[in-house]
């Protein structure tokens, strides 16, 4: 066997990423909080008497998207939205952020300023403040234009207990809108894939949507944003972490026509394509009606729909009822999503 090295597929968000995290990162850095593998980690806060008074939630993410400007967003907007969303998926109100920049020698000031302007506007829209920062410059070739790391701190309101391990049999699975837009936008923008489409990234900060959802349904069990690895991978993570099965109705999952057309052309499955403005909500069926109503009046939830339900069958696995009415496994992403040949 050759020496093990890091492959691009280790960063795809699928099975290989998961293996890398568990076999190396958790092995050396693991602790009960990190081992939970949530989008953001909840840290209990106690007063001087040792009584639990609340939870802060902390998360961090690095952004290396290429190209740095794309239809529907840019790396700056993404660096705020991604971290805001990770906090919001624990039901937390995002508050304070740090931002670290790795700049490649030769990056035009104008590009940097455009990114910062976008970051500022997105942070304002999401109600977060950037209170700590760092900048490093590396030699040409040492980075690709601009990488950004953000960390975010949020507070969980009292009474909210949201976790990817809290889905229960009988719950319904709700999606706030159509899948695949971000990933296919980026793929079609990348060098080498030159065709015109009306695709736009769905990149958006989802905290105000989550607040609106919690206002009508404070008992939401689980939330997850299906980013890298797509809807299928996020559902599998919930199924595994909650020890339940999930059944998805393919026909109920919204997919915009340009996404469907581009993914057919490239031989990609939209269920495995990244999203940056989508969330999966899992809650009791009885709470779903008012929640859907609230979501559909929010700009980021207009296409919200029930797409499936949680079951006691096949724990840890996700089943898909296909458009044809047949039933099959919906597995995790297992490598880079690559376009087909013929």
């Amino acid at each position, binding site marked *: 066997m050759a020496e093990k*090295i890091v492959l*691009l597929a280790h960063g795809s968000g699928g099975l290989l990423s998961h293996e890398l995290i568990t076999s190396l990162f958790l092995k050396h850095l693991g602790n009960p909080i990190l081992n939970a593998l949530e989008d953001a980690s909840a840290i209990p806060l106690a007063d001087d008497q040792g009584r639990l008074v609340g939870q802060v939630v902390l998360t961090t993410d690095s952004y290396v998207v290429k190209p740095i400007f794309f239809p529907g967003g840019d790396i700056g907007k993404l660096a705020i939205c991604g971290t805001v969303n990770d906090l919001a998926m624990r039901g937390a109100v995002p508050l304070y952020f740090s931002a670290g920049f790795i700049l490649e020698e030769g990056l035009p000031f104008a590009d940097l300023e455009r990114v910062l302007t976008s970051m500022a506007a997105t942070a304002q829209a999401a109600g977060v403040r950037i209170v700590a920062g760092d900048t490093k410059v590396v030699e040409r070739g040492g980075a690709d234009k601009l990488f950004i790391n953000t960390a975010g701190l949020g507070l969980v309101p009292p009474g909210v207990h949201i976790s990817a391990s809290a889905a229960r049999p009988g719950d319904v699975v709700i999606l706030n809108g159509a899948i695949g837009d971000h990933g296919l936008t980026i793929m079609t923008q990348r060098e080498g894939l030159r065709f015109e489409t009306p695709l736009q990234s769905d990149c958006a900060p989802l905290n105000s949507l989550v607040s609106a959802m919690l206002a009508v349904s404070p008992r939401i069990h689980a939330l997850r944003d299906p980013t890298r690895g797509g809807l299928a991978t996020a559902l599998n993570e919930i199924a595994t972490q909650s020890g339940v099965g999930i059944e998805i109705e393919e026909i109920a999952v919204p997919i915009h026509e340009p996404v469907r057309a581009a993914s057919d052309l490239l*031989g990609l499955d939209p269920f495995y394509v990244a999203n940056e403005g989508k969330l999966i909500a899992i809650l009791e069926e009885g709470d779903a009606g008012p929640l859907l109503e609230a979501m559909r009046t929010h700009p980021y939830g207009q296409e919200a729909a029930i797409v499936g339900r949680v079951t006691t069958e096949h724990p840890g696995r996700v089943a898909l009822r296909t458009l044809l009415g047949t039933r099959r496994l919906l597995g995790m992403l297992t490598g880079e999503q690559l376009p*087909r040949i013929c």
Partner: protein
Amino acid sequence: MKYTDEFRDPATAQRLIQEIRARATRPIRIMEFCGGHTHAIMRYGIRQALAPHVHMASGPGCPVCVTADTDIDYCIALARLPGVIVATFGDMARVPGSRSSLQEARAAGAEVRIVYSALDALELAREEPRRAVVMLGIGFETTAPTVAASIVRARELGLSNYYVYSMHKLTPPAMRSILDAGEVRLDAVLGPGHVTAIIGWRAWDFLPADYGIPCAVSGFEPLDILEAVRLLVELQGSEPRVVNAYSRGVTAEGNRVAQSLMSEVLEISPANWRGLGELPGSGLKLRPAYAAYDARLAFAVSPALSMEPASHPGCRCGEILRGVIEPPECRLFGRACTPARPIGPCMVSAEGACAAHYHYGSSLT
């Protein structure tokens, strides 16, 4: 109604499934030649819906899967040469050769770029005039014309740093080889839609004429496939013939422009297939007039790099490509061999039978 919805209507699909099940008076075995069909059949659960009345067997129609180990090793060796950029379709990057894959070679420093067409590779050659760009010519009659076009264009542009390593293969000889081997009993063949759009459906006339079985050329939408299967089931017991169930894409004679482009640049040669071995007249190589673009002639790759031992022991991709066994019958399937860590190419490609079975065919219990 959207174009795609028209071919994915659940009510029509259910009606076709019922009709097929009712008409199949005995178990009917159909080989889908094309990996694109395998993928769609598994993804939409068509296989499960038709069993046990109709058994769909996967064929050799996955370009990456049928690429021989020696060719993959040669590609990796090319990518390791200083000053060379290898341009390839995505799937190919992940296929394990005897010791490594192109993506591992890339992680170790080799220049491997994923492209979506040969014209992208040509563009790369224009952007990198001081380096040699080698396009890996993989695929059947569908991709060969675009690769041929890129060579013609390279000549027009006067590019001297663009090369093609042709591993292109022709589909009818592979189908013949499977039937001649007699390892599998087939009642009918689901003809590849995209390939037949190029070569024309008359190219499959040999199936009824020489082997007495019908062929239905099919598109890739679920209803295309179900309709083609319905026609094949209906033809059982009557005079076998080729039916064109993909008339919106396929004609009797095919795409003449693409055919003449191919024959201008490429000529028929023997080709080495994984699973089928060397088949005469089943490959395409560059004509002598275009020898300047032939990577086989331009680069001397050391035999120490390219002549490595053959496939991983235990890998049964060859039998899977011939339809002799089903992917789960391989003892590596889903255990040692998974899409995350593939041992054989059929587990790598989106068109590979093993990957399709792994992603879409596993039991839920």
